[in-house]
């Protein structure tokens, strides 16, 4: 079987920037920033967030918001890929998340702590809510499954793992991406780290003051060229490379030299068989925190040169944690397909300490390839190369 080319045949996305790809592109053109105070849980904290304001009808699941978001993106992606009967194929499901992996139900725990007993409803939801397992069972996928819990790089890593599955023949089709809800626990956690922005985030800006949390899901359907040919599917995009590397430096801070990010970029480019000059743009992790943007901007300038077209979409979606890699893979794909990228929302003043600035306005892009990066807690770095099919 020819596993050298992995096509992207479907995409699904939901975030504060829109409930699907069409709404998202409109938001991007208008530069809409749908941020506001937290409405999903009570809190005294004030950092604005990017919530998904209305879930499409039929997707609400009590206490399983991350799963709801994931299913919306999966259904969109399956529809986009025109995948109906999956029984003829080995279909793998690989989903990144942070929230769905933790039994962090405050009310359950409060009850247990106070009385030594608690209803099992939250536990049952947690046990049934493993993203990859639930999605695979719902759509009848019988291939490999993995829920990737690599903090903020989970979504990118999930897509990279799916690439490995497809190339090794473990499955014919893979559904991969990430999903996370806005949740009380990480909201408090990021505030405690002192990196939650009291205002709106401004990735790569001189005066950046931290991140805003968000929520959403982004999913790709990927398949070998042979599988696509067999089922009569066509595609204009492909997943060309993936790289992952650890800083081995610090639990919460990136390596100042960006050692891991450089290695991840080199591995992704190498697998794609291209050099840095082939990259049309980079959708950067760009959280709006001082350290991330400093390190990432410096490494991107070093690898791709100061003329690189680069943006962060976190100013339009917030930092969606385990979903970010999935959502931004979809955004990167859309950018390649549409031939433009939006202004890097929130960026106003160049930081002279960063030798690269993101785009300030909607920008036409050229080139067949683009990169999406993710940098995570624990010093994990991941990068994927997405390409346009020749002649598309």
């Amino acid at each position, binding site marked *: 079987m020819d596993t050298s080319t992995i096509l992207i045949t479907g995409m699904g996305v939901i975030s504060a920037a829109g409930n699907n790809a069409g709404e998202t592109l409109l938001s991007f053109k208008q530069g809409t920033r749908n941020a506001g105070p937290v409405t999903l849980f009570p809190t005294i904290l004030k950092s604005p967030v990017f919530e998904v304001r209305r879930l499409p009808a039929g997707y609400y699941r009590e206490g399983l918001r991350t799963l709801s978001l994931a299913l919306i993106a999966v259904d969109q992606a399956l529809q986009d890929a025109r995948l109906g009967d999956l029984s003829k194929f080995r279909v793998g499901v690989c989903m990144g998340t942070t929230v769905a*992996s933790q039994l962090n139900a405050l009310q359950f725990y409060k009850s247990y702590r106070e009385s030594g007993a608690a209803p099992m409803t939250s536990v049952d939801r947690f046990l049934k809510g493993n993203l990859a*397992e639930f999605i695979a069972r719902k759509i009848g996928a019988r291939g490999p499954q993995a829920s990737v819990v690599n903090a903020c790089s989970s979504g990118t890593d999930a897509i990279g793992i799916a690439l490995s*599955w497809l190339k090794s023949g*473990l499955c014919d089709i893979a559904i991969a991406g990430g999903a996370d809800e806005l949740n009380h626990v990480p909201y408090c956690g990021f505030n405690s780290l002192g990196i939650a922005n009291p205002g709106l985030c401004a990735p790569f800006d001189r005066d950046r003051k931290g991140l805003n949390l968000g929520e959403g899901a982004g999913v790709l359907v990927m398949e070998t060229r042979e599988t696509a040919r067999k089922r009569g599917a066509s595609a204009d995009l492909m997943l060309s490379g993936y790289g992952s590397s650890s800083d081995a430096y610090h*639990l919460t801070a990136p390596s100042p030299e960006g050692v891991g990010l450089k290695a991840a970029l080199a591995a992704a480019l190498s697998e794609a068989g291209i050099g840095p000059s082939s990259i049309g743009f980079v959708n950067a992790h760009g959280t709006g925190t001082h350290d991330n943007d400093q390190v990432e901007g410096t490494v991107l300038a070093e690898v791709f040169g100061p003329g690189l077209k680069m943006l962060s979409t976190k100013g339009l979606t917030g930092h969606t944690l385990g979903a970010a890699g999935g959502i931004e893979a979809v955004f990167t794909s859309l950018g390649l397909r549409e031939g433009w990228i939006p202004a890097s929302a929130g960026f106003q003043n160049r930081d002279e300490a960063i030798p690269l600035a993101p785009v300030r306005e909607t920008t036409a892009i050229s080139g067949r390839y683009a990169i999406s990066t993710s940098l995570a807690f624990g010093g994990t770095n991941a990068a994927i190369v997405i390409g346009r099919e020749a002649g598309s």
Partner: protein
Amino acid sequence: MKIVGIGMVCSEGQGIASLEKALQRGWKEPVTVVTPHIPGGAYPAYLVDFANLPDKTLLKKIRRSDAVSKMSVLAAADALANSGIKDITQKKLGIILTTAFGPHVTTFNFLDDILDHGDAAVSPTTFSNSVHNAAASYIAMSLHIKGPTITITQFQFSFQSGLQLAQAWLDQGRCDYVLAGAVDQYGDVLGYVADHKLTTARDGKIKPFTFKPTVQVPGEGAAFFLLGNKNGGEAYCTVDAIHTNDDPDHDQSVDINIIDANGMLPDESAYLPSLSKEIPTAAYSPLFGSMMIGSAFNMAAGALMLKQQRQYATPVQDNPHTIRLLTETEDCALAKIRCTGYNCYAERSVIYLTKV
């Protein structure tokens, strides 16, 4: 792919020698853990005794980490050392950590912070350690590993999923070696949940062959494997195949079946049709406790048996279904072992191990 090193932390201690000792000795009574929030509550459990672990250097280095990270780092370091490969961290080395529940005790500590002090006065250190990939990151930092580092959670099939990925990474040349392992921790909330949803063995004895009804005794620990395609001579065994959801190799002849049955499902009778009258069956969960990632410990037992060419009797031999059990500990010729697990949907996973 070959298993070239094994590291372990469990109630028996640290290192593959601790597993060997337990396999040789047989069943041992668990400790009793008093639960702080349940008046008079106490459960049997197989817990890691950190105070009596031999390695103090690494523990000191990662003193701010939680128990999940400590167990992971110690087991991972042991696996590297056990391989005997010089300068292993200078090679293309990846980390795949798998877990069913991750650092849940630290997560509950963080919830304590929120409940006791409010949203604005929680500990950033506790939050950082409550993130699922903290343990893998501590491994990378402590052992200076800069390759791809992934954490996967898939409940009963977490470990199998990690093994599949390790195989793919090795075959594609993404890594020369992969440090793949599984870790889970006991905590009083998990003990309460397990007791509520399952049946705790009040005598402390897991009976893996009763199948229905089942009894469980919570365990904790970490088992790590250094995996590679290159090193053959000193390897424990080859991992021939890892299947989830199906088993196309089921007709293959094997010398021993090891099953993951451990009372973590209220009904484990799905195992019964997978067993054969001709092939002796073993289950080693009574040595280390009930864990969704128990398959990693069973695989370690299988790998040890293939390397030593020695079989170990199944430690608890209650056998109401009169299946053929592995009842004797003795030297013998072993070529192939199958490790089988089921999840709560009665889906099957298998790992085939072969003598090098």
